[in-house]
């Protein structure tokens, strides 16, 4: 018998003004880390970490004071100094919160979310507003958490981020879960086509590819050939065909769809709020 759900979410809706953010999503939670989130809320808080979007701290709290306060609240903690170092905040230890840049604040909040060495971490748009260096540093940190067997639940608008960090991705559009799966599964399911760009040293090379299995289109622009087809074997077949006809290749490039392509295909291309 499956365990009795302790949280039953039936057709939850959340709107911001006229925008529907969550549209009748339903799910059951049997337990979180073996605990009942209602009854054991405070025991659970010891074992999870949360980073909220648009949170703030007291203007004049120092970075090390915030870390020390958070550390004092939990049963088990990691070394706050080391965490600040990993997040590149060591030289800001004595700075007031109000003097930090947006990225530094974001990194401090991530430090606070990780101070209790949580088994389950919720990260809400964690790299929004960060520069590429800081983003990479935080990605490494998340990979580190993952590698230690912890679970990370994160939301993001950056498909690159989801693709690099997530084992499972749920795509939400107009408040509904459109699809869920590993990044690879999602790409294969929704954007199976591959594109191969070949620049050949033969005038009519394009004709050879038309009969390959899974070919969708071949566009021929002089020496530049664009081959679109579906299936994981497309690239192998194109290479085989080039070899068979002894075509001299000047340039060869492939394009594999990313999670971003999947997202755009599933949610449409028009600009949304």
């Amino acid at each position, binding site marked *: 018998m499956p365990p009795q759900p302790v949280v039953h979410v039936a057709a939850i809706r959340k709107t911001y003004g006229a925008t529907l953010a969550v549209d009748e999503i339903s799910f059951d939670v049997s337990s979180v880390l073996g605990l009942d989130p209602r009854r054991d809320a405070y025991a659970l*808080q010891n074992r999870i970490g949360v980073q909220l979007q648009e949170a703030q701290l007291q203007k004049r709290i120092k970075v090390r004071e915030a870390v020390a306060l958070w550390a004092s609240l939990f049963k088990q903690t990691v070394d706050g100094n080391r965490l600040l170092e990993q997040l590149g905040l060591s030289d800001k230890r004595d700075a007031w919160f109000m003097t930090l840049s947006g990225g530094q604040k974001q990194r401090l909040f991530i430090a606070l979310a990780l101070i209790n060495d949580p088994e389950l971490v919720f990260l809400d748009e964690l790299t929004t507003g960060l520069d590429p260096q800081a983003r990479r540093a935080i990605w490494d940190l998340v990979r580190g958490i993952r590698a230690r067997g912890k679970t990370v639940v994160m939301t993001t608008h950056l498909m690159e981020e989801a693709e690099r960090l997530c084992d499972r991705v749920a795509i939400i559009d107009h408040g509904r879960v459109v699809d869920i799966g590993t990044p690879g599964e999602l790409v294969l399911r929704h954007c199976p086509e591959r594109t191969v760009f070949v620049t050949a040293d033969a005038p009519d090379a394009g004709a050879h590819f038309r009969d390959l299995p899974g070919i969708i289109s071949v566009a021929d622009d002089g020496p530049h050939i664009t081959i679109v087809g579906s299936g994981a074997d497309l690239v192998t077949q194109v290479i085989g065909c080039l070899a068979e006809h002894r075509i001299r290749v000047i340039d060869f490039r492939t394009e594999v769809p990313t999670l971003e392509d999947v997202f755009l295909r599933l949610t449409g291309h028009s600009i949304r709020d």
Partner: protein
Amino acid sequence: MLHGLWQLTWLEIKIFVREPLGVIGTVAVPVVFFVALGKMFSGRLNTAVADGPRVVTVDLPILASILISLSAVLSLVTIVSIYRESGILKRLRATPLRPYTILSAHVIVKLLLTAVTLAATVLIGRRYYPIDSDVPLAAFALALLFSTLSILSIGFLIASVVPTARFAQPIGSLILYPMLGLSGLFVPLDTLPPMLQTVARMLPLTYAVSLLRGIWHGEGWQAHASDTAVLALVFLVCTALSTKVFRWE
């Protein structure tokens, strides 16, 4: 149970002291104001009024106590709304800190501030505030603590529902200062028109003033049982209501 209360309280004190304007406004200004006022009325405090025109009957120590506690309440209202508006409450709430721990820390900071301001006023202005040796200071301090807690709970109720920090201070002032005018501190209650007397009896501050004045003049707690009861009731009702309507974000 109140895990983290002392850490948070100590931190909030440090944070408060780091803002010079806040310290000047909350501690320095009242001290200077009441010392100056004491100097002006020096020696004529509680005697001249009895056979005066009976319009302004001010017991300066009580006025000072009430005003200082009111300003602490207003600053609490403002701080809570700023913390809510900027998302600090939201962030603190997602930790093992209990909600009432966060709020208690602020109440303790405000009570300490009130005590410091009053102590400074008394020490610096002791030449002008001739405190008779028969004034029961300990009992008065207790009565003041009791009154302040009661008024703080009104402040909390205001803070629970005021939408934005910008409105917190003016709305708080609008509610609290008129109560002061009818509290019997400036104009004796029995000289008010009957309708205003009824209004005055419905305002908690009236009971605070009555209690503080009574204790200051050496009356016993039994004589002010009803004042104490009303203040306790206000505290309980406002605290219960604020836990129901309090908004974290």
